[in-house]
């Protein structure tokens, strides 16, 4: 009996990461006849943060936007290849596009809260927009949980009815993260989420990313090499030279990409020789 209670400590249970598995296979993208991506393949695994790095105009943001079908919202944009969410092609004709976007959330470069809505309404905008019923009694809990996950709850809990546009830039961006999390996505895509923010807010958001990575699969585009090194476990280096479409030059563990890159161009880029 006493032997059984000897170890009276919580047992560390190894839980598999909750996010989904996303895989791009031979993704090409065009704007009208101009090709910006050519046969890009990348596996984005649950539990880790994938950073997409590369100089401006290399197609990394376009690639990110093909992952939740935002690319095609631009007139004359075209797409080729496959994007598989847990093995199923999201471009499959039978799939509902709104459902795909609901499960693959996105945070944009410029914070874009709905200015006509309050902070609380912003968080609840997703379920309302895609027709997911949230019982009135669950709404407050959803708002609190989403804002807490985005690291904003303590700053705004007393003014949830104030307009979302009245927050600072960094708070607005975390509100947008909370809004994306409120629909409970499997994947979270972030397109340079900190490029418009001050270092303090950047720090908070990076910490948030670290806390979220076991719950959702995160893919982040960033221009900031240090940020990529700090937040990601996997990195993909994009490059487009002299008007050719963007390709992935090298991808792999972040440590390896930054510490021991195989390709000379990767080495030059991560060491600040260009870009």
């Amino acid at each position, binding site marked *: 009996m006493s032997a059984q209670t000897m170890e009276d400590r919580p047992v560390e249970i190894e839980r598999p990461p909750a996010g989904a598995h996303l895989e791009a296979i031979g993704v090409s993208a065009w704007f009208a006849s101009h090709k910006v991506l050519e046969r890009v393949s990348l596996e984005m695994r649950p539990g880790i943060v994938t950073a997409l790095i590369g100089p401006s105009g290399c197609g990394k943001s376009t690639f990110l936007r093909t992952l*939740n079908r*935002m690319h095609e*919202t631009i*007139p004359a944009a075209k797409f080729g290849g496959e994007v598989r969410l847990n093995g199923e092609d999201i471009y499959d004709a039978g799939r509902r596009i*709104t*459902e*795909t*976007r*609901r499960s693959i*959330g*996105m945070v*944009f470069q*410029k914070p*874009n*809260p*709905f*200015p*006509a*809505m309050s902070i609380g309404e912003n968080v609840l*905008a*997703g379920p*309302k*927009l*895609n027709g997911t019923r949230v019982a009135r009694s669950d709404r407050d809990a959803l708002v609190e949980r989403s804002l807490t996950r985005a690291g904003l709850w303590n700053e705004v809990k007393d003014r949830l009815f104030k*307009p979302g*546009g*009245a927050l600072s830039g960094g708070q607005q961006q975390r509100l*947008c993260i909370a*809004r*994306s999390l409120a*629909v409970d996505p499997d994947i979270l895509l972030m397109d340079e989420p900190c490029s418009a923010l001050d270092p303090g807010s950047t720090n908070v958001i990076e910490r948030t990313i670290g806390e979220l990575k076991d719950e959702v699969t995160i893919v982040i585009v960033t221009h900031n090499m240090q940020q990529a090194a700090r937040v990601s476990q996997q990195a993909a280096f994009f490059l487009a030279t002299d008007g050719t479409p963007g390709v992935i030059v090298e991808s792999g563990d972040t440590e390896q990409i930054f510490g021991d890159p195989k390709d000379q161009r990767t080495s030059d880029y991560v060491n600040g020789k260009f870009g």
Partner: protein
Amino acid sequence: MTVIDIESRMAEPVDDEPRAIDPGLSREDKIFHGSVRSIGFFVLIVFGSIGVFLGYQSIPTFSHYGFSFLTETQWNPELDQVGIAAVIVGTFQVALVAIVVSLPLALLTALYISEYAPQRLKSSLVSLVDLMAAIPSIVYGAWGFAFLQEHAKYVARWLSQYLGWIPFFSVDTDPNAALWAQTQFTASAFIAGLAVAMMTIPMACAVMRGVFAQAPVGEREAAVALGATRWGVIRSVVLPFGRGGIIGGSMLGLGRALGETIAVLLIISPAYDIKWSVVEVGTQTTSSLIAGLFGEATSFQLSALLTAGFVLFIITLVVNMIAAVFVGRSRSGSITEA
């Protein structure tokens, strides 16, 4: 010595007054600035002098009839009974019918063009709607009289049959009679309003479309990325952003409808009673009153007609000013920066 020197130099800029700063306009800028400003003032002066002229012309009428000019319903210069109460009511009835009909049509047209129409259709749809504004109002009037009325009287009868308990749709005849009095349902504010609606649609639609097109891309993408349908984007982004444009466009249309003359003159048969019903035969509006009686008016009657014009001038001025306030008030800026 040196110490005093430094102190006196430091004391100099203590004069804490705003300085006159030369904006540094070049000669070209000054000439352009001056000419644009004088043209702007010229427009205001023309506009103001119309108001002053009308106001001056209405002095004899107001001094003769006094306040009763605004409360008297009949227009019988021979019996010295002249007033615009019924005419003002009729003016608003025609205008309101026009707005009620044109607002949903203009709104949905604008939403379709800005949100749903495929790119290659957009420009031709826009010019088609703009073309509606290019049709002379006499054509709309003739169309309303010769074509629309023949069909709309059935709608008017239907309204009277089923909604006759609402004063707006009650007609002093039995709409259910086998041989129903068809003429009782013609030449009304309702039919005139339908014709005027065709003229207010393009204006209201253009204003709304312009505002919808400015809805921020970032917010649209935010909604789409959350899994919103197109209707969701419209509801959460486009309509809240465009609210000022919707209200302003409708008010501009109302201003247009209040002043519409010739189409109304062709359709209505003049009647000078204040009545609720818009579907019953007979009404009168301010502008068609003026147009109808202008030719055979004595100089004193002319003053009375110009006084009616003065009242209409003031009303449309107020309506358009309210519209301008709504169109100019951008939701995004005003709330975000608060």
